[in-house]
């Protein structure tokens, strides 16, 4: 038994930073933010009148935004499945990770 440390796995889970773990968390956060910003932009273009006669979303705009977001996620899923299928066809495996695809 060593007096110098509690063993590497104990340190790992409570003390030291694993650069790969942090990097993956950062990448995931940036990806989600990017998708969010794209939806905000795209659905604004689709649903919001640029006359800006009033400061609130009107009924029609609100409903349009809800459907726009839902449809965007559907397209996201379809294209994710397509890319996954293509990756599987090309390399015998999914291009990145796999099961979390299209689920965002």
């Amino acid at each position: 038994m060593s007096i110098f440390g509690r063993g590497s796995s104990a340190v790992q889970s409570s003390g030291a930073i694993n650069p790969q773990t942090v990097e993956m968390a950062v990448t995931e956060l940036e990806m989600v933010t990017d998708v969010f910003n794209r939806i905000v932009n795209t659905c604004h273009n689709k649903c919001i009148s640029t006359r800006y006669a009033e400061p609130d979303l009107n009924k029609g705009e609100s409903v349009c935004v809800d459907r726009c977001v839902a449809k965007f996620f559907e397209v996201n899923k379809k294209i994710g499945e397509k890319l996954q299928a293509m990756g599987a066809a090309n390399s015998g495996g999914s291009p990145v990770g796999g099961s979390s695809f299209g689920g965002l």
Partner: protein
Amino acid sequence: MDFSKLNAAEQAHMTKYIEKKQMHDFMNLYAGLVERCFTSCCSDFTSKALSGKEETCVMNCADKFLKHTERVGARFAEHNAETMNEAASSFKQ
């Protein structure tokens, strides 16, 4: 987003990163709002002063964009929660 698998040091690192990111995202929102509302509302350059009509348009534009973003955020969060539930229940099978 689920950071519960990270250890304390990693979570502290992420918290610091997220603080920086929030500052950055806010500056981006601000600059994007100005560009967007200027582009939609200002088309008369016979004067350099903002007309009353232009100012109303800009203020409405900013209000509306923020409400729009909030609404998209609510739908986005609902979708992510659903996706996580599906993922969780597929793990239980």
